[in-house]
């Protein structure tokens, strides 16, 4: 297991540092609004929020190139937003409107965007891993210098898909960055009650895949670790396993009474929240003032309001298009 | 009420019972109930119609006098003078 680089002090100029903070704020405000809209039955079905884990998506995705591929899970609003999918189209998708990034057909768990090579959410745990291996195989066979990053929770490591994908990627030395967002609870089951081996990096090592652990609540740590890992993969040295230790502040999904973890544990992790720890450090290092923070927060809130208004006003898909895109138009169906 | 109006009223009343009747086809001298298919209920409704339109009462005993269209017109002419 490779030791992660030291995180302090914040090694970047004010602009880049504030960019990371702003992206985390955008995710936080958007997800809070989604919880409210779910209560008003504007958003339906299942909804899995990313509040508390913002540092992972922001830190990791800022370390990748535009032509890299991204595969995520049903908890993918933050990843999509940072990757470049507009908040308008994400919100419209959750309203089920045709202006949504999946024409209103996918909903919260199935955000897709070809332009940013965002190969989507996936409601089946571990379902995206083999997909990422395939994307990387294509890059390798077509000798394209791209990385495929796939995000997954520690719960996915109990699925066969994880083990088969790790082995294939290692066997064929494919350019895959396995990024495990370990939030300690797979739905209702704590890690210790679902994995015999709870040291996830040790699991990766068993497939001869180099691994590194980083503090998923610290955007600087995540960003530095991901830069290293991505370089390793881009240099053709094969797959890399990155474990980001994090914590989701809210329930697994909108219908989970959280019987499995007590309130004290949640509060404790909240003290280590990615947003206020990072903004505190930036203020301490003179790279952020309170006014600047409030301004960033106001911009984030405005973007959320606009996205909600856009989603409210957007049209529904006409029923006549129900069968559209089951097959490619023109191909013999 | 002159003869023209009386005749028009009688024909109109008859048509409410038997819409298929054509004024031209009615012969004044042949028994009405042979020319038009009127059962006892139709006949009673025809008399009720005349009673309401012409405010004239036709006792049952006079039924026998009202065989042809001409009889009906003459009878009503005398009753409405």
């Amino acid at each position: 297991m490779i030791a992660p680089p030291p995180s302090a002090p914040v090694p970047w100029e004010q602009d880049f540092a504030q960019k990371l903070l702003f992206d985390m704020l955008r995710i936080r405000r958007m997800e809070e609004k989604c919880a409210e809209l779910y209560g008003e039955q504007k958003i339906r079905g299942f909804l899995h929020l990313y509040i508390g884990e913002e540092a992972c998506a922001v830190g990791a995705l800022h370390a990748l190139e535009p032509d890299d591929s991204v595969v995520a899970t049903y908890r993918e609003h933050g990843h999509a937003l940072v990757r470049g999918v507009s908040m308008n189209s994400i919100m419209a998708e959750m309203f089920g409107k045709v202006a949504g990034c999946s024409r209103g057909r996918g909903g919260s768990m199935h955000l897709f965007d070809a332009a940013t090579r965002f190969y989507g959410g996936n409601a089946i745990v571990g379902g995206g891993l083999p997909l990422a291996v395939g994307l990387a195989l294509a890059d390798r066979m077509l000798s394209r210098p791209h990385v495929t990053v796939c995000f997954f929770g520690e719960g996915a490591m109990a699925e066969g898909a994880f083990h088969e994908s790790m082995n294939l990627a290692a066997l064929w030395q494919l350019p895959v960055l396995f990024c495990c967002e370990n939030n300690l609870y797979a739905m209702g089951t704590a890690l210790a009650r679902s994995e015999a081996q709870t040291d996830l990096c040790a699991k990766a090592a068993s497939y001869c895949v180099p691994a590194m652990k980083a503090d998923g609540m610290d955007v600087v740590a995540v960003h530095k670790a991901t830069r290293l890992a991505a370089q390793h993969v881009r240099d053709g040295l094969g797959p890399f396993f990155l474990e980001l230790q994090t914590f989701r502040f809210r329930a697994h999904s909108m219908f989970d009474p959280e019987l499995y973890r007590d309130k004290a544990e949640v509060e404790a992790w909240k003290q280590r929240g990615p947003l206020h720890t990072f903004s505190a450090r930036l203020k301490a290092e003179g790279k952020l003032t309170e006014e600047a923070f409030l301004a960033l927060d106001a911009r984030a809130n405005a973007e959320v309001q606009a996205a909600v208004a856009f989603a409210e006003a957007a049209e529904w898909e006409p029923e006549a298009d129900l069968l559209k895109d089951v097959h490619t138009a023109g191909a013999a169906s | 009420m002159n003869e023209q109006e009386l005749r028009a009223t009688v024909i109109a009343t008859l048509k409410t019972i038997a819409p298929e009747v054509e004024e031209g086809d009615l012969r004044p001298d042949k028994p009405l109930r042979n020319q038009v298919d009127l059962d006892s209920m139709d006949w009673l409704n025809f008399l009720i119609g005349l009673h309401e339109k012409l405010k004239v009462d036709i006792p049952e005993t006079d039924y026998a006098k009202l065989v042809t269209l001409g009889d009906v017109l003459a009878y009503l002419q005398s009753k409405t003078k």
Partner: protein
Amino acid sequence: MIEFKLPSLGADMDQGTLLEWKVSPGDTVRKGQVVAVVDTSKAAVDVEIWVDGVVRELLVHPGETVPTGAVLATFDGVGETLLAPGATVRPAPPPPVARISAAHRISPAARKHAEELGVDIGHIAGSGPDGGVTVEDVERAALAARAAPAATAAEAGPRRPVTPAARKRARELGIDIETVTASGPGGAMLLEDVERAAAPATPAAPAKDRQSEMRRAIAAAMSRSKREIPHYYLAETVPMKSALDWLTTINTGRPVTERLLMAVVQLKAVALALKKFPEMNGFYRDNTFQPAAAAHLGVAISLRQGGLIAPALHDVGEKPLEQLMRELADLVKRARAGSLRSSELSDPTITVTNLGEQGVAAVYGVIYPPQVALVGFGRIAEQPWAEKGALSVMPAMTASLAADHRVSDGHRGALFLAELRELLQQPEILK
């Protein structure tokens, strides 16, 4: 003022039970603060409020179960301007259906009509002013959809579409399919078409209008009656002088609108006679006779454009003649206007036909199944009458009975007609 509604806390939740309020009227609350605990089918869940404000009134009390979206409490916004615009009371979302894209506007009536006819509105070209889909468009699409199978069936070339059940029945009844007229959807020949063809000598009218439909219904009933009911017929001559005189005296002095017809006198007589002869009044079903509790007489009424119908006059034996007269007049009017109630058609326990007025001496009718008898009255006419050796002129009428031999015998039939004759000669009893 802000309405705090029970939020939906999951995909599977339609209602919730309030367990506990965490705030009371007058408390100030911050955005994201837990204000209540609600029990769902799974467990108790903390419920947050999404705006800053002050509790005004708690509308729902612990223990009450309310549907998602129900208002739990009201709050006053703290300094409205502080809140982001539009964060206060949220307008109710427009129903999803109404906001289809401009290219596909459809009128609510048309949408409802489409749903009723099961027509997919997506494929209808809108002829409305703004390109919207109208009710007529839906009608046209429904007809086109319905006609479509016919087209394909027809194209199926010479082979006539005959359903398997119809083909099997035709074999059983020895019917040549070529002679049968098909009435099914898309021109298909159905079971009932074959059964109708099997009925003797009554060709099914091909036209689909009401007239031929009634003709087909009468044909089917009459064929079944002749096939299944062993009729026997009896007749009796009834002196009518006393009845006629009584009726004339009753009618003199009455305005034309209240005069009685001989028909109601005859109907009342039949009803009273039936009290002594219950085996004439009822239904024959599943091989057993079910006597009827009351006398609902089916009155045969001829319709101007042809055809005959015999709706029921209810409880004839219990009503005074004046009431019967009013009810009969109304029944005839509605029968001829085609606005009879279905119960009037299914209720008759026996039928009475009065063809006599058209100048027929006697009438021997066909019983209407599942009834078991039919009474016919001929014309009242003067005829020579010998009584106690003396000859006189008597207005008389032939009363006839057609009855079901499975239920009654000629002897009982004759006694019934005799009773009828006695009653008709004592009209005052019929009052």
